[in-house]
Protein backbone atom coordinates (compact mmCIF):
# COMPACT_ATOMS: atom_id res chain seq x y z
CA UNK A 1 0.00 0.00 0.00
CA UNK A 2 1.22 3.50 -0.76
CA UNK A 3 -0.38 6.60 0.70
CA UNK A 4 -3.69 5.03 1.70
CA UNK A 5 -7.01 6.84 1.44
CA UNK A 6 -7.35 10.36 0.01
CA UNK A 7 -10.27 12.20 1.63
CA UNK A 8 -11.13 15.08 -0.68
CA UNK A 9 -12.01 18.44 0.89
CA UNK A 10 -14.13 20.96 -1.02
CA UNK A 11 -15.23 24.37 0.27
CA UNK A 12 -18.26 23.40 2.38
CA UNK A 13 -17.36 19.76 2.96
CA UNK A 14 -17.99 18.98 6.62
CA UNK A 15 -17.61 15.20 6.78
CA UNK A 16 -13.96 15.23 5.82
CA UNK A 17 -12.36 15.11 9.26
CA UNK A 18 -14.95 12.58 10.45
CA UNK A 19 -13.96 10.33 7.55
CA UNK A 20 -10.25 10.91 8.22
CA UNK A 21 -10.71 9.99 11.88
CA UNK A 22 -12.71 6.89 11.01
CA UNK A 23 -10.04 5.58 8.63
CA UNK A 24 -7.05 6.50 10.78
CA UNK A 25 -8.33 5.71 14.27
CA UNK A 26 -11.12 3.15 13.82
CA UNK A 27 -9.98 1.19 10.79
CA UNK A 28 -6.26 1.85 11.26
CA UNK A 29 -5.37 2.65 7.67
CA UNK A 30 -3.31 5.60 6.41
CA UNK A 31 -5.48 8.49 5.23
CA UNK A 32 -4.90 12.14 4.26
CA UNK A 33 -7.04 15.15 3.53
CA UNK A 34 -6.57 16.28 -0.09
CA UNK A 35 -7.54 19.82 -1.04
CA UNK A 36 -9.93 20.39 -3.98
CA UNK A 37 -7.20 22.37 -5.78
CA UNK A 38 -4.85 19.37 -5.94
CA UNK A 39 -4.12 18.29 -9.48
CA UNK A 40 -2.86 14.82 -8.72
CA UNK A 41 -3.95 11.78 -6.72
CA UNK A 42 -0.73 9.92 -7.47
CA UNK A 43 0.28 7.47 -4.80
CA UNK A 44 -3.14 7.07 -3.22
CA UNK A 45 -4.83 3.69 -3.05
CA UNK A 46 -8.41 4.87 -2.63
CA UNK A 47 -10.38 8.13 -2.73
CA UNK A 48 -13.30 9.21 -0.58
CA UNK A 49 -15.62 12.14 -1.27
CA UNK A 50 -17.08 13.11 2.12
CA UNK A 51 -20.42 14.53 3.15
CA UNK A 52 -21.27 18.19 3.58
CA UNK A 53 -22.56 21.13 1.59
CA UNK A 54 -19.84 21.71 -1.00
CA UNK A 55 -20.11 25.21 -2.47
CA UNK A 56 -23.18 25.75 -0.34
CA UNK A 57 -25.19 23.47 -2.66
CA UNK A 58 -25.16 26.41 -5.10
CA UNK A 59 -27.09 25.72 -8.33
CA UNK A 60 -27.47 22.03 -7.41
CA UNK A 61 -25.80 19.86 -4.78
CA UNK A 62 -22.40 18.83 -6.06
CA UNK A 63 -22.72 20.69 -9.36
CA UNK A 64 -19.97 23.22 -8.76
CA UNK A 65 -17.60 20.81 -7.02
CA UNK A 66 -17.29 18.92 -10.34
CA UNK A 67 -15.19 21.75 -11.71
CA UNK A 68 -12.54 21.50 -9.03
CA UNK A 69 -9.07 20.54 -10.31
CA UNK A 70 -9.03 17.46 -8.08
CA UNK A 71 -12.11 16.04 -9.85
CA UNK A 72 -10.10 15.82 -13.11
CA UNK A 73 -7.55 13.71 -11.24
CA UNK A 74 -10.43 11.74 -9.73
CA UNK A 75 -11.83 10.87 -13.17
CA UNK A 76 -8.48 9.45 -14.26
CA UNK A 77 -8.17 7.56 -10.96
CA UNK A 78 -11.65 6.06 -11.38
CA UNK A 79 -11.06 5.24 -15.06
CA UNK A 80 -7.99 3.24 -14.06
CA UNK A 81 -10.13 1.21 -11.67
CA UNK A 82 -9.13 2.95 -8.44
CA UNK A 83 -11.60 2.49 -5.55
CA UNK A 84 -13.75 5.59 -5.00
CA UNK A 85 -16.41 6.07 -2.30
CA UNK A 86 -18.88 8.96 -2.31
CA UNK A 87 -20.72 9.61 0.97
CA UNK A 88 -23.88 11.75 0.86
CA UNK A 89 -22.72 15.02 -0.80
CA UNK A 90 -19.84 12.95 -2.16
CA UNK A 91 -22.40 10.67 -3.84
CA UNK A 92 -24.10 13.77 -5.26
CA UNK A 93 -20.78 15.03 -6.66
CA UNK A 94 -20.09 11.65 -8.28
CA UNK A 95 -23.46 11.80 -10.05
CA UNK A 96 -23.03 15.40 -11.18
CA UNK A 97 -19.58 14.40 -12.47
CA UNK A 98 -21.28 11.49 -14.26
CA UNK A 99 -19.11 8.89 -12.57
CA UNK A 100 -22.34 7.32 -11.31
CA UNK A 101 -25.76 7.35 -13.01
CA UNK A 102 -28.92 9.01 -11.75
CA UNK A 103 -29.67 12.07 -9.68
CA UNK A 104 -30.89 12.95 -6.20
CA UNK A 105 -34.12 14.81 -5.61
CA UNK A 106 -35.46 16.40 -2.45
CA UNK A 107 -36.72 13.89 0.09
CA UNK A 108 -40.35 13.03 -0.57
CA UNK A 109 -41.31 14.51 2.81
CA UNK A 110 -39.38 17.73 2.03
CA UNK A 111 -37.81 17.33 5.46
CA UNK A 112 -34.12 17.22 6.22
CA UNK A 113 -33.92 13.85 7.92
CA UNK A 114 -31.20 13.14 10.43
CA UNK A 115 -31.70 9.74 12.00
CA UNK A 116 -30.43 6.20 12.38
CA UNK A 117 -31.90 3.66 10.01
CA UNK A 118 -31.15 0.33 8.37
CA UNK A 119 -29.83 -0.62 4.97
CA UNK A 120 -29.50 -4.05 3.44
CA UNK A 121 -26.41 -5.00 1.48
CA UNK A 122 -27.90 -5.98 -1.88
CA UNK A 123 -24.78 -6.81 -3.76
CA UNK A 124 -21.13 -7.18 -2.85
CA UNK A 125 -18.10 -7.54 -5.08
CA UNK A 126 -16.95 -3.96 -4.57
CA UNK A 127 -13.83 -2.71 -2.75
CA UNK A 128 -16.14 -1.05 -0.20
CA UNK A 129 -18.23 -4.10 0.72
CA UNK A 130 -15.54 -6.75 1.10
CA UNK A 131 -16.10 -6.91 4.88
CA UNK A 132 -19.88 -7.36 4.76
CA UNK A 133 -22.11 -10.10 3.36
CA UNK A 134 -24.97 -9.88 0.89
CA UNK A 135 -28.38 -9.63 2.64
CA UNK A 136 -26.72 -8.30 5.80
CA UNK A 137 -28.59 -5.49 7.56
CA UNK A 138 -26.44 -2.53 8.64
CA UNK A 139 -27.39 0.22 11.08
CA UNK A 140 -26.22 3.59 9.74
CA UNK A 141 -27.19 7.25 10.18
CA UNK A 142 -28.46 9.52 7.44
CA UNK A 143 -28.53 13.30 7.46
CA UNK A 144 -29.82 14.80 4.25
CA UNK A 145 -32.54 16.79 2.57
CA UNK A 146 -31.87 15.57 -0.96
CA UNK A 147 -31.45 11.81 -0.86
CA UNK A 148 -34.36 10.73 -3.03
CA UNK A 149 -32.58 8.66 -5.71
CA UNK A 150 -33.97 9.00 -9.23
CA UNK A 151 -33.02 7.49 -12.53
CA UNK A 152 -35.10 6.76 -15.63
CA UNK A 153 -36.60 3.25 -15.84
CA UNK A 154 -33.95 2.00 -18.31
CA UNK A 155 -31.17 3.03 -15.96
CA UNK A 156 -32.90 1.41 -12.98
CA UNK A 157 -33.20 -1.81 -14.99
CA UNK A 158 -29.53 -1.67 -15.92
CA UNK A 159 -28.63 -1.21 -12.26
CA UNK A 160 -30.80 -4.16 -11.27
CA UNK A 161 -29.55 -6.45 -14.03
CA UNK A 162 -25.94 -5.55 -13.36
CA UNK A 163 -26.32 -6.09 -9.58
CA UNK A 164 -25.22 -2.48 -9.19
CA UNK A 165 -27.70 -1.57 -6.46
CA UNK A 166 -25.41 -1.96 -3.45
CA UNK A 167 -27.57 -0.79 -0.55
CA UNK A 168 -31.34 -0.49 -0.07
CA UNK A 169 -33.24 1.09 2.81
CA UNK A 170 -34.89 -1.64 4.87
CA UNK A 171 -36.52 -2.41 8.19
CA UNK A 172 -34.57 -3.61 11.22
CA UNK A 173 -35.25 -7.17 10.10
CA UNK A 174 -34.19 -6.57 6.51
CA UNK A 175 -37.55 -6.09 4.78
CA UNK A 176 -37.24 -3.72 1.83
CA UNK A 177 -40.65 -2.06 1.72
CA UNK A 178 -42.33 1.32 1.42
CA UNK A 179 -42.33 1.81 5.21
CA UNK A 180 -38.56 1.70 5.26
CA UNK A 181 -38.28 4.00 2.24
CA UNK A 182 -38.05 7.17 4.26
CA UNK A 183 -37.05 9.54 1.43
CA UNK A 184 -38.95 8.19 -1.60
CA UNK A 185 -35.91 6.79 -3.44
CA UNK A 186 -36.63 4.67 -6.50
CA UNK A 187 -36.58 1.02 -5.47
CA UNK A 188 -35.43 1.98 -1.94
CA UNK A 189 -31.98 2.67 -3.37
CA UNK A 190 -29.52 3.93 -0.76
CA UNK A 191 -26.31 3.26 -2.71
CA UNK A 192 -25.11 2.10 -6.12
CA UNK A 193 -21.90 1.34 -8.00
CA UNK A 194 -20.61 1.99 -11.50
CA UNK A 195 -20.24 -0.63 -14.22
CA UNK A 196 -16.61 -1.23 -13.22
CA UNK A 197 -17.72 -1.79 -9.58
CA UNK A 198 -14.86 0.40 -8.28
CA UNK A 199 -16.93 3.55 -7.70
CA UNK A 200 -19.60 3.33 -4.98
CA UNK A 201 -21.91 6.08 -3.77
CA UNK A 202 -24.25 5.94 -0.79
CA UNK A 203 -26.38 8.42 1.15
CA UNK A 204 -25.86 7.03 4.70
CA UNK A 205 -22.73 7.98 6.66
CA UNK A 206 -20.49 5.01 7.53
CA UNK A 207 -17.89 7.36 9.06
CA UNK A 208 -20.49 8.43 11.66
CA UNK A 209 -21.08 4.83 12.67
CA UNK A 210 -17.48 3.91 13.37
CA UNK A 211 -16.60 4.99 16.89
CA UNK A 212 -17.99 2.80 19.69
CA UNK A 213 -18.12 5.89 21.92
CA UNK A 214 -20.87 7.29 19.71
CA UNK A 215 -23.05 4.28 18.99
CA UNK A 216 -23.36 1.44 16.47
CA UNK A 217 -20.21 0.68 14.49
CA UNK A 218 -21.46 -1.03 11.33
CA UNK A 219 -19.92 1.86 9.42
CA UNK A 220 -16.42 0.90 10.54
CA UNK A 221 -16.99 -2.55 9.06
CA UNK A 222 -17.85 -1.03 5.71
CA UNK A 223 -14.78 1.20 5.78
CA UNK A 224 -12.60 -1.73 6.87
CA UNK A 225 -13.52 -3.32 3.56
CA UNK A 226 -11.07 -1.10 1.73
CA UNK A 227 -8.26 -2.22 4.00
CA UNK A 228 -9.12 -5.87 3.25
CA UNK A 229 -9.42 -5.14 -0.45
CA UNK A 230 -6.05 -3.34 -0.59
CA UNK A 231 -4.34 -6.08 1.43
CA UNK A 232 -5.44 -8.65 -1.12
CA UNK A 233 -4.80 -6.62 -4.25
CA UNK A 234 -1.70 -4.64 -3.33
Amino acid at each position, binding site marked *: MKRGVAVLTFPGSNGDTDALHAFQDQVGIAAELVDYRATSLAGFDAVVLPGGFSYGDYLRCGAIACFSPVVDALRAFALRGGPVLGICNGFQILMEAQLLPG*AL*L*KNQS*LEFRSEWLHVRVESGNTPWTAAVKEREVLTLPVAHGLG*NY*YADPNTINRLREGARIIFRYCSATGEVDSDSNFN*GSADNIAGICNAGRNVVGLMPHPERASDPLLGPTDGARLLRSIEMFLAVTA
Partner: protein
Amino acid sequence: MTEMVWRVELVVLPKDGVNDPQGEAVKGGLDKLGHRTIERVRVGRHLQLDIRGTSESDVRAQVNLMAVQLLANQVIEQSSISAMSVLKSGEATG
Protein backbone atom coordinates in the same frame (compact mmCIF):
# COMPACT_ATOMS: atom_id res chain seq x y z
CA MET B 1 -19.27 40.74 -37.55
CA THR B 2 -21.14 42.78 -34.98
CA GLU B 3 -21.20 41.40 -31.47
CA MET B 4 -24.12 42.37 -29.25
CA VAL B 5 -25.00 41.62 -25.67
CA TRP B 6 -28.22 39.65 -25.24
CA ARG B 7 -30.17 39.15 -22.03
CA VAL B 8 -31.47 35.59 -21.92
CA GLU B 9 -34.08 34.35 -19.45
CA LEU B 10 -33.57 30.62 -18.93
CA VAL B 11 -36.15 28.55 -17.08
CA VAL B 12 -35.13 25.22 -15.58
CA LEU B 13 -37.93 22.88 -14.47
CA PRO B 14 -38.19 19.23 -13.44
CA LYS B 15 -38.74 16.95 -16.42
CA ASP B 16 -42.23 15.60 -16.85
CA GLY B 17 -42.34 12.26 -15.13
CA VAL B 18 -39.92 13.30 -12.40
CA ASN B 19 -41.51 13.55 -8.99
CA ASP B 20 -41.58 17.14 -7.70
CA PRO B 21 -42.29 17.13 -3.96
CA GLN B 22 -41.58 20.86 -3.78
CA GLY B 23 -44.26 21.51 -6.37
CA GLU B 24 -46.68 19.29 -4.49
CA ALA B 25 -45.97 21.11 -1.24
CA VAL B 26 -46.57 24.49 -2.89
CA LYS B 27 -49.82 23.20 -4.36
CA GLY B 28 -50.84 22.01 -0.89
CA GLY B 29 -50.10 25.44 0.53
CA LEU B 30 -52.15 27.20 -2.13
CA ASP B 31 -54.96 24.75 -1.55
CA LYS B 32 -54.95 25.55 2.18
CA LEU B 33 -55.19 29.24 1.30
CA GLY B 34 -58.41 28.46 -0.54
CA HIS B 35 -57.11 28.31 -4.11
CA ARG B 36 -58.85 25.20 -5.40
CA THR B 37 -58.24 25.83 -9.08
CA ILE B 38 -54.62 24.62 -9.23
CA GLU B 39 -54.10 21.52 -11.34
CA ARG B 40 -50.33 21.23 -10.91
CA VAL B 41 -47.32 23.16 -9.63
CA ARG B 42 -43.71 22.61 -10.71
CA VAL B 43 -40.90 24.43 -8.94
CA GLY B 44 -37.66 25.21 -10.72
CA ARG B 45 -35.06 27.92 -11.27
CA HIS B 46 -34.84 31.05 -13.34
CA LEU B 47 -31.42 32.15 -14.55
CA GLN B 48 -30.73 35.45 -16.23
CA LEU B 49 -27.66 35.43 -18.46
CA ASP B 50 -26.16 38.43 -20.23
CA ILE B 51 -24.25 36.93 -23.16
CA ARG B 52 -22.21 38.31 -26.02
CA GLY B 53 -23.15 36.89 -29.41
CA THR B 54 -23.35 37.68 -33.08
CA SER B 55 -26.98 36.68 -33.62
CA GLU B 56 -29.99 35.26 -31.82
CA SER B 57 -29.26 31.77 -33.10
CA ASP B 58 -25.63 32.06 -32.00
CA VAL B 59 -26.73 33.00 -28.48
CA ARG B 60 -29.36 30.23 -28.36
CA ALA B 61 -26.72 27.69 -29.35
CA GLN B 62 -24.38 28.95 -26.63
CA VAL B 63 -27.10 28.79 -23.98
CA ASN B 64 -28.20 25.29 -25.01
CA LEU B 65 -24.63 24.06 -24.62
CA MET B 66 -24.32 25.76 -21.22
CA ALA B 67 -27.59 24.16 -20.14
CA VAL B 68 -26.33 20.70 -21.02
CA GLN B 69 -22.89 21.27 -19.46
CA LEU B 70 -23.98 22.89 -16.21
CA LEU B 71 -27.17 24.85 -15.88
CA ALA B 72 -29.68 21.97 -16.01
CA ASN B 73 -29.15 18.45 -14.72
CA GLN B 74 -29.99 16.48 -17.86
CA VAL B 75 -31.22 13.50 -15.82
CA ILE B 76 -34.01 15.30 -14.00
CA GLU B 77 -34.39 18.78 -15.50
CA GLN B 78 -35.43 20.42 -18.73
CA SER B 79 -34.61 23.98 -19.70
CA SER B 80 -36.03 26.50 -22.12
CA ILE B 81 -35.35 30.08 -23.04
CA SER B 82 -38.46 32.00 -22.06
CA ALA B 83 -37.30 35.36 -23.40
CA MET B 84 -34.29 37.03 -24.95
CA SER B 85 -33.60 40.60 -25.99
CA VAL B 86 -30.70 42.75 -27.07
CA LEU B 87 -29.23 44.63 -24.12
CA LYS B 88 -26.45 46.36 -25.93
CA SER B 89 -25.92 46.78 -29.63
CA GLY B 90 -22.28 46.28 -30.29
CA GLU B 91 -19.74 47.87 -32.56
CA ALA B 92 -18.50 46.09 -35.59
CA THR B 93 -15.54 43.92 -34.65
CA GLY B 94 -14.94 42.52 -38.12
